[in-house]
């Protein structure tokens, strides 16, 4: 067993699960989507991205790409949330909740791809 692989797999899966946890629920109901979960998803996604840095292989490159997509989506979601709460006059309405959640939904997709690649790589190496 390789500790590095454990950490790597842990962060990728955790990024996906946290992201999914935030995403699930009624899209327009703020109570179904806890902002702490979004925060955790952003942080774990960033760490997962950094862990993928510096891998020269083809699979490593695709992994990094999916991670960057997820980061982009989640940071966009966080920004919408911040703007809605602090800047826009109408406040955190159902419309904004829906857009935050749908952005994080895109990130879920990217994270699922990432997990699939992880599984494929593992299976390939197993022989």
């Amino acid at each position, binding site marked *: 067993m390789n500790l590095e692989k454990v950490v790597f797999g842990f962060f990728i899966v955790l990024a996906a699960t946290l992201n999914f946890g935030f995403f699930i629920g009624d899209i327009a109901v703020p109570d179904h989507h806890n*902002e*702490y979960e979004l*925060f955790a998803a952003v*942080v774990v996604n*960033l*760490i997962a991205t*950094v*862990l993928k*840095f*510096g891998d*020269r292989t083809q699979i490593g490159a695709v992994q990094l790409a999916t991670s960057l997509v997820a980061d982009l989506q989640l940071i966009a979601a*966080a920004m919408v*949330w*911040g703007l809605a*709460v*602090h800047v826009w006059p109408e406040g955190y309405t159902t419309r904004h909740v829906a857009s935050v959640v749908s952005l994080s939904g895109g990130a879920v997709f990217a994270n699922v791809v990432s997990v699939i690649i992880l599984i494929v790589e593992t299976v390939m190496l197993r022989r």
Partner: protein
Amino acid sequence: MTSTIFIVLRRMRAPLIVIVAIYAISVLGLTLIPGIDADGRPTPALSFFDAFYFVSYTATTIGFGEIPVAFSYGQRMWVVFCIYLTVVGWTYAIVTVLNLMREEAFQQARSMRSFARRVRRMVDPFFLVAGYGETGQLLCRALDHLRIAFVVIDIEQERVDEIEVQDFARDVPALKADAANPEVLLMAGLRHPRCLGVIAITTNDSANLAVAMAVRLLNDRIPVLCGVQSEEVAANMASFGTDYIINPFEKFAEYLSLAVRSPGSYQLLEWLTGIPGSELKPQAEPPKGLWVVAGFGRFGSAVVKELDHCGMGLTIIDPEYQLVQSHLCLRGLGTDAVTLREAGIERAVGIVAASDDDVNNLSIAVTANELNPDLFVVLRRNRESNRILFEAFHADLEMVPAEILAHECLAVLTTPLLSRFLQMVKLQDDAWADALVERLKQCAGTLVPATWTVELDARAAPAIHWHLSRRELSLACLMRDPSNREQRLDCHPLLLVRMGGEILLPEPGTHIESRDRILFAGTPEATSKQALLLSNRNAADYVLTGREFSGAWIWEWIRRHRRQTE
């Protein structure tokens, strides 16, 4: 792909994760700890955005105190903790980056990248020089003088650094790397379409061999030129068709015997392989008679072989006693008077100090000179740093392996016909050579003449090639000044090579044909004037017909029209 980026990313993983984690912890803490208002009532904690904003300016030590509400004690305690934590995180990241920058592997990767990029962008034809030792430095200076581009690889960083300090006219890409590594050669432009040839002149024979092999297999199209010191390696190189193999010791021994047999030919040879533009040194003529050779190593044995060939009497002195047939052999260094007397120094006409130790060589020469002041002294100099000592001694002939190698390389590379010509020179007699030297002196004066090859094909000489297909031309046409056709250019044809034959010293009246190759010697100005004549239609028309053409089509047409009406 770009390996430096990968190195940076890989190394920055740990510090970046630390920073992300520290930010996350700090922000999270601030969003959990309740605040307090002016009346002492608890207020909700900071929102995520406020917390991130606060941590951002605190962590970067900007300390922008903009949050309007004063913190509660709980918040303050947490912020104290955060401040120290973030400082540690940033310091760690910065120190890692700085260390990375200073690391040799990283710098090597970076210099390799910039080297490869510079080589890829080479526009002019260039030579790949492997080895920037004494020979390499001499050769590179000469190539620079001739305005030929080159790329350098050397295994020592100091020598590579020296290139940056050198005042070369061109930008010279240089890399510290092992030339024996084929990947390095590829990076240095082995397969670059503009690469003219590879010169392997490292001090290591096996590295030169590896370069020769790599060139043969990876790019058969370009010539490779190797310096070599041992006979076995030379034979090995020859076995797979290395184009030019130069052994400085054998070369010098050959020259020495040529100088003994035919001083005129030797003088001519020295002239034509010298570095163009340098002052000519009058050469002393080595006498015939008994020679003493001190040092029977690679150089000594080559000299003995060649002098023996010329029928000279020989005495050999060497620290390790070796029996060489039909010669008197003595054990010793040759630095003391006793051994030298025993070797018959009083009767001898010349001495060759051929050991690989410069100080010993000087000592041999000085002692021998005291015993017999009329001796002809041949001195081997191994190190450039000893030049001053050797100059002070004034040997009749100085043998410097690095210089011989550099001169030979230069002659072979810049004018391929020259080596062919030099082979022919060795077969001619002394009077022939003396006559040629006199004629060359008339055109080039006391400077080493430039030698160049003219190819009469459509690409290298379009103007002359055009005329050749329409009329008969003689060699004299190529030797007229394009600014005044009555004037002769300061150049002299040495050799004309045509399909199936060659003419040594062709007369000016010689008929020339398309695709002839002609070797000229003369002044550098003559080279450039002749180049104009070869490539510029107007210049060629003027020289060949005596009429000035403007070149524009309309004037040509009017002139032709007028001629018809007349």
